[in-house]
């Protein structure tokens, strides 16, 4: 079947099998490897991206379901060479070690701040509770999201 999915504002049309998962469409058909493919079982959350502005685990959604819809991936956070504060927060607070969980963490963190600009630590931890980091113990991920909450203005650091 042919699908057209708008990924970070750009329509991507591709002939796919209906069984193709959205995470694979984004990585293979749209060519954007920032979204990571992890556990395949909706447990780890590294594949989190937004569909119509709402975060989903893209290993548990068919690309066919996103036909005609808007997808935003981690590559869509940076605008015109300027990093989103959530990205800057992960730099400032050393929010990653291996970096595998990072794209999903940033997409969930950005969504949280869009809906709740000043979350408590408990609210941050609850929001990322469906995502697994095996390096950091979450402390610096929480700190990174808090940094972004405290620095909502667009970062001046270029990508």
């Amino acid at each position, binding site marked *: 079947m042919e699908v057209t999915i708008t990924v970070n504002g750009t329509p991507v049309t591709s002939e796919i099998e209906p069984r*193709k*998962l959205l995470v694979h469409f984004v990585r293979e058909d749209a060519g954007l490897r920032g979204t990571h493919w992890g556990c*395949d079982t909706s447990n780890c*959350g590294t594949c989190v991206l937004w569909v119509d502005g709402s975060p989903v685990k893209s290993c*548990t959604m068919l690309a066919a*379901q996103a036909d005609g819809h808007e997808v935003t991936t981690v590559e869509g956070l940076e605008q015109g060479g300027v990093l989103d504060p959530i990205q800057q927060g992960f730099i400032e607070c050393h929010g990653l070690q291996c970096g595998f969980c990072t794209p999903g963490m940033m997409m969930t963190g950005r969504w949280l701040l869009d809906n709740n600009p000043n979350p408590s630590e408990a609210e941050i931890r609850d*929001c990322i509770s*469906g*995502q697994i980091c095996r390096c950091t113990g979450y402390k610096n991920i929480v700190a990174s999201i808090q940094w972004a909450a405290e620095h909502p203005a667009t970062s001046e650091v270029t990508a």
Partner: protein
Amino acid sequence: MQTPAPVDYARATSVADAIDLLEKHGDEARLLAGGHSLLPMMKLRLARPEILIDLNDLDELRGIRIEGEEIVIGAMVTHAEILDSPVLAEHYAIFREAEKVIADPIVRNKGTIGGSMCQADPSEDLSAVGSALKGSVVIQGSGGKRTLALREFHEGPYETKVGDAEILIEVRFPIRPGAGSAYEKVERRVGDWPVASAGVFVVVSGGVVTDCGIGLTAIGAEHFCAPDAEAYLIGKAPTEENLAAAAQLAADACTPYADQRGPVDYKLHLARELTLRTLRKAAASSQGA
């Protein structure tokens, strides 16, 4: 790499269209709601439908509304929408308390009440909520609609009374002025299925319990409820002694299996303790505490 077997895909344009597609394809078709149970089952080949009928475009299955003396939740309403609903929070705290511990915030954006009910997992939290509140479901087929009590909805684990060419379109809950309600779950880690959960509503009037419902999940309570415990409480004062006796009757209605989540005696202990805690809280809430 986990990927479903080859499958066809169709988007339903209306409930009637979905029913037409179901009639055309028979039991080789499966309805796709949130997909967070069906797609994992397809990856593991536990389910192998030939065609998926996607319900996600059907706005007629969305929305939470009051209709007369009932709250009506459309089948495609998500866990996140139930968690955030002011209408549900106003009438029944049990929805928010249960939804906070179902899966995680990202999964709750996709999973639906209709999908959860029809998946009929024996550990489903919303099934305990539905049985506790003595809700009902509306099921539609080409011959029209029928309403069925949730306490008669399940045939067994993963089996419901929804026919091959039928769709669950809404879940309905009676409004009970003055009711208190609560939900408690014990889970091994955030977002897991319960070791055991209990949810209740209680109406206390004139110092005695005049109405109540007790729901239990993951511990083998038939139809996710404990009718003997409910009957025991009616007409009695909500004292600690009476609530504890009812909680013991609720545990007596359970037949849990020992598994990696715990042994039988532990699960029966949880059945009693979680029922008691929720009864206390709901009774206090009904009395304005």
